[in-house]
């Protein structure tokens, strides 16, 4: 129960003033600019865009600055901002096959057409802290190589060519596309809604669930068929112009997991798939997403639903870190009246207990 409480206005005002002071930190240290955050803390910005579910680098950088680097708080700020803008419509679906690739790797085929392209990655670094970075480090200019005009087809397309992997669920003309920002979740949820939920889900939550599937809680034998990161064109059908207008480009990461096969008396066995797609360079996120997407297909694929990662209601209801933090953190708001009533009840119960024990010692002993 919530009861209006008055008072504390000055304390609140002063607390926010103190927060602003602490956020700025030692005044002799130069203030962070949004460009510095966007350029040098780029993966934090990517995470805030993905989970804030709003692609806007500058806003995400501002949110990180305002939240003092608390990414969930920053995501919360971005979600709140988003609610202030009108929606013009939905874009044409982006074509990740036509991505300008900055990174593209496959763990299933060494010699994929277009090659294995490492791009800017932490992989194969030694994870040793680099004291050089502490101050004034100027990195070498990046090496350049011969660009190739070779196509970089999706690995799943190559497998699909031989019928070795299931096809993606086809687009159905005029089929409505679920949007959880417009309608409350209901279960069972279709894959479009599940993927939207996972695309904005907390990375840590997805990572833990994905990990749990690998350890045996809903095992589905994944291979990282392909991970790609780069820029895709975004187009929007503008009714006023009468055609699809280019809006510019956004960075996306896509992960195609290749999983254990299915088959039946009438259908030849083939690999199944899990899919991950998110804003920015979000490799851990999209890999985890693809694992969980595949786990959530248990019902569709006739698998026994036993593990948390296979339970769509459990996953989808707890994946959103803004909702989660809201409910967990609301516990610190005043519950004085609630608590007083519990306290009153507990005192009465204890008194009854004491009275009962004091008045009926013999009967109790006899029992």
């Amino acid at each position, binding site marked *: 129960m919530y009861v209006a409480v008055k008072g504390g206005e000055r304390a609140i005002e002063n607390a926010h003033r103190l927060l602003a002071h602490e956020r700025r930190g030692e005044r002799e240290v130069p203030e962070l600019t949004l460009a510095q955050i966007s350029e040098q803390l780029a993966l934090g910005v990517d995470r805030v865009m993905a989970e804030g579910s709003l692609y806007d680098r500058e806003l995400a950088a501002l949110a990180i600055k305002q939240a003092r680097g608390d990414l969930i708080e920053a995501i919360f700020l971005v979600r709140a901002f988003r609610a202030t803008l009108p929606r013009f419509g939905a874009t044409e679906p982006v074509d990740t096959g036509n991505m300008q690739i900055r990174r593209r790797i496959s763990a299933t085929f060494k010699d994929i057409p277009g090659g294995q392209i490492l791009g800017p990655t932490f992989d194969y670094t030694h994870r040793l802290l680099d004291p050089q970075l502490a101050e004034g480090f100027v990195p070498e200019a990046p090496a*350049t190589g011969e660009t190739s005009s070779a196509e970089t087809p999706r690995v799943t397309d190559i497998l699909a060519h031989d019928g070795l992997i299931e096809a*993606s669920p086809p687009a159905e003309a005029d089929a409505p596309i679920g949007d959880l920002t417009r309608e409350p979740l209901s279960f069972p949820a279709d894959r479009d809604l599940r993927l939207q939920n996972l695309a904005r889900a907390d990375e840590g939550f997805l990572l833990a669930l994905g990990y749990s599937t690998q350890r045996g809680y809903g095992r589905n034998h994944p291979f990282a068929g392909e991970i790609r990161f780069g820029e895709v064109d975004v187009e929007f059908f503008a009714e006023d112009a009468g055609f699809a207008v280019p809006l510019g480009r956004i960075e996306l990461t896509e992960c195609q997991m290749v999983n254990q096969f299915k088959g039946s008396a009438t259908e030849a066995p083939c690999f199944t798939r899990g899919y991950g797609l998110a804003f920015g360079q979000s490799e851990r996120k999209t890999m985890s997403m693809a694992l969980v997407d595949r786990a959530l297909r248990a019902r569709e694929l006739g698998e026994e639903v036993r593990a948390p990662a296979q339970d769509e209601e459990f996953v989808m209801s707890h994946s959103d870190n803004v909702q989660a933090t809201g409910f967990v953190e609301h516990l610190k708001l005043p519950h004085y009246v609630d608590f007083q009533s519990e306290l009153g009840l507990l005192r009465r119960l204890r008194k009854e207990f004491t009275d009962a024990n004091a008045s009926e010692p013999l009967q109790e002993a006899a029992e």
Partner: protein
Amino acid sequence: MKQSWRLLIKLSSIIDNFSQARFREMTKTEQDSRRAQRRAGMAVLAQSDAADISARLSEMALPAHKTLREPENGLVMVRGRVGGDGAPFNIGEATVSRAAVLLSTGQVGFGYTLGRDHEKARLIALCDAMAQSDDFADAVEQEVIAPLRTAMIAKRDRVAAETAATRVDFYTMVRGEG
């Protein structure tokens, strides 16, 4: 004044196809090719900085024009496809600015761009209107869009070359040699 344009061409938040009656004299092929050119121009402009577009425009004679739709910010829901090629789903939203500009000769240009830059949307709309004018189409293509396209491609090529340097060349280690 503004009211009369509103009557002339009905703009709405999302819907209502703007009647392109005045361009009907063009053949279907001409319309298609002009539309392709407009789209190509918009793609370059949307990926350029507002300051660069503005600098290019400031060096040329501009047609008389008015802002038909004041620049505004909003959102689009970005869609992907399941598995990259399947049924569409919603990834998340992106910020967008848009505007419309009317030339005194009647052409209406539309400006759309990712981000929250009113001026950029207005400049794109102006360029798009000019791209539809027989008197200004060549000039805006040559003096604004073409140089920005060159810069855009140069940047893209540089990124592609840096990326290409990280392509793995596998070699097989042969036992007992070397």
